[in-house]
């Protein structure tokens, strides 16, 4: 099989351990070097805001769901950051929703509930579960991806769903 160079589909669910801090530090150093206000690129800005969102998720209070659920733990949060960073390497669309699940997962959604929808739930440091639904073609698909495995299937489903993303 011919392997195309570095597309999202070639990315794996893997992440340099200190990369989150690197993103922030490198971006800010670039700004300080020019003595200009820090103006991140769109992608950097989104990743930085995403990190803040994840930090808020792990600080959710016990019982945040009104039924006693605990917040996601830091390992799952790190897994979510690794996963999103891996997907964000090349062309991709930001999820329309980022939320905690009651079991301690971190869930991302793309698409539209009324037509094509994709969800990706990071359930631990190295495991994510996904679900795809296409109401127009009457198709559902779900699966699991582990750290080190290809994100090709996921990237393909995200690309498909993102074309139908819109706010409710």
């Amino acid at each position, binding site marked *: 099989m011919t392997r195309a160079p570095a597309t999202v589909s070639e990315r794996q669910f893997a992440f340099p351990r200190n990369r989150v801090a690197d993103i922030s530090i490198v971006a800010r150093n670039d700004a300080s070097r020019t003595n200009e206000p820090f103006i991140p690129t769109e992608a950097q800005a989104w990743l930085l805001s995403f990190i*803040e*969102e994840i930090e*808020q*998720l792990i600080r*959710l209070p016990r*019982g*945040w*769901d*009104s*039924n*006693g*659920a*605990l917040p996601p733990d830091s390992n799952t949060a790190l897994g979510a950051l690794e996963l999103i960073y891996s997907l964000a390497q090349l062309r991709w669309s930001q999820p*329309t*929703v*980022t*939320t*905690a*699940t*009651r*079991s*301690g*997962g971190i*869930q991302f*959604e793309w698409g539209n*509930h009324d037509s094509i*929808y994709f*969800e990706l*739930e990071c359930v631990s440091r190295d495991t994510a*579960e996904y*679900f795809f*639904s*296409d*109401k127009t073609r*009457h*198709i*559902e698909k*779900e699966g699991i991806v582990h750290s080190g495995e290809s994100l090709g299937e996921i990237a393909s489903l995200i690309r498909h769903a993102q074309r139908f993303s819109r*706010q*409710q």
Partner: protein
Amino acid sequence: MSIEDSTGDDHIDDDEVVYLRVPPFPPFQKPQNWLTSANFKLDLRKNEQGLSVYRAKTRSVMQVLQDSNAIPGSFVVSATVGEIRNLKNVAGTLLNLDVLPRDDGGKNPGHAEIQSPTPGQISKSASKNLRDLFARSGRITES
């Protein structure tokens, strides 16, 4: 407390309406008004066997939202038991969900659970299709 619950009746009629309580969305969730399938997933860390709902004929919306566990700003969404039992995935396959009374011997009147044929498991498809079903009711608040 309903007579049905306290006497151990284990059947809920299809025409009954049930409420599912949804906590307020965290301020960082974008968009904030987006009801997600995550609202219809079990808490596996607590070994939940089913998804908690409340029978409208026993608990009013106000009672569900004023429960001591309820977070201010919560709202409910609703569906009939028949709709839940007849829920299908997008391929048209019946999800075989049921709604069973679980009032804890009368301590939690009107409480019931949506369960799959395998208690303790609600598939991602079931969560998504439950989300779509309950979303049709729109938000119901005290006022």
